[in-house]
């Protein structure tokens, strides 16, 4: 008896083409858009979106802190809304549009108003949590109407900065909102 090598197990072929990660389990091909670029990848079912971005795409601007949804450092924009990439599986993102901190001002492009405001107001201390804050703030500036002070506080409460108070961070967000909604109905939001 000889093994029929001409008809290999198609699942095994898929696994072989995939990066050698951990134990075998379900592999899936996903297609999504990341920072404007189309991406097609083979991913293991259990691969977290945060690890997919960092380890597979090399987008290490998305930081990983607590890995259970508390700290907010891994926040990215998923179909336009801030979401925890550590609480999302890469395989769930089939067809999704993702934006990471790398996509805000790629290459030599000028900083976005949010990034500039964080820089000018020194809205950071060590900077580890900053990418998450910047992504949430970016989403706030993209809303059709200016978020009020309570909305800003609610959004920032989804991020933990362990270095300092939130004073400069809030100031940066308000500066970016002022710039975006110049002459808008709401006040400074502070």
């Amino acid at each position: 008896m000889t093994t029929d090598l001409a008809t290999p197990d198609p699942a095994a072929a898929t696994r072989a083409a995939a990066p050698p990660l951990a134990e075998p389990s379900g592999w899936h091909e996903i297609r999504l858009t990341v920072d404007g670029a189309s991406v097609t990848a083979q991913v293991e079912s259990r691969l977290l979106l945060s690890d997919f971005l960092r380890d597979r795409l090399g987008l290490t601007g998305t930081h990983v802190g607590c890995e259970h949804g508390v700290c907010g450092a891994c926040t990215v924009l998923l179909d336009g809304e801030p979401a925890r990439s550590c609480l999302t599986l890469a395989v769930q993102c089939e067809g999704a549009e993702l934006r990471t901190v790398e996509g805000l001002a790629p290459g030599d492009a000028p900083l976005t108003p949010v990034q500039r405001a964080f820089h000018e107001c020194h809205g950071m201390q060590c900077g580890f949590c900053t990418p998450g804050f910047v992504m949430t703030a970016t989403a706030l500036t993209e809303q059709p109407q200016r978020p009020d002070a309570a909305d800003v506080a609610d959004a920032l409460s989804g991020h933990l900065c362990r270095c300092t108070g939130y004073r400069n961070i809030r100031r940066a967000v308000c500066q970016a909102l002022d710039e975006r909604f110049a002459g808008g109905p709401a006040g400074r939001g502070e």
Partner: protein
Amino acid sequence: MKPTPFDYSAPGSVGEVLALLADEEREAKVLAGGQSLIPMLSMRLARPGLLVDITRVPGLDRLYTDVSGALHIGAAVRQSRAADDPVVREGWPLLAAAIRRIGHPQIRHRGTVCGSLAHHDPAAELPTAALALDARFVIAGPGGTRTVGAADFFVATFQTAVAPDELLTEVVLPPRARDGWAFEELARRHGDFATVGVAVTLRRAPDRRTVGAARAVFCGAGPVPVRLPAVEEALTGTDAGTAALDAAASAALAGLAPADDVHATAAYRREAAAHLLVRACTLAWERCS
């Protein structure tokens, strides 16, 4: 830590979901928003063999009111969408308020209403709101579809009437009532699960001056949302004044038997619950139209 290996499927119909859940070879779990499940996977508190992603099933993302005026929230409807919906905010403000107490926008954008209900953390806001609002739960299973009332839906911590081979397809809230309402909670930080909390609805009697009907449901006070008839009786027929609120608070102190945990003793929880109840009743009475 990272999740243990599992397979993943995103079927296109409720029938396919049920077929996958019926797999007896491996434990299958329903994945909607994943905001509770994925941390459990990462900490390896759950080790399912298969995740069934229901968010691609057409129809489960429906949020609508039917001809009777009841609100239907499909299994894939995300919390932010429900809380921001003008119809929900106008007709079921207690639900919108309860959702706004869940985590942060970053969590609510992904988490689903039905996912939180089916997960049933007894400190969570939505199960308590669902009991206060008399929700009905539509559950699809191998034998067809059945409907369960809120009083029978929550069984124990992390346990509901949904069997492992069944799917909660939607939650239905009765037509909007013009009840006054309030959702008050004590949490260690904004966005945390409640140490203890209460949902109150009050309805004016035809004379407009007294309470015709009351409902009070507590979270963080037991393994399921706790409804206290004694509190409701203490309020009904009164003018919701100081004496009535004192009686309601006493009834809450006597009726609640919460557990001690690292965050609060049972005595502290009871005391806090009584205070929250008074505040919630005051607000709800002011909101009675």
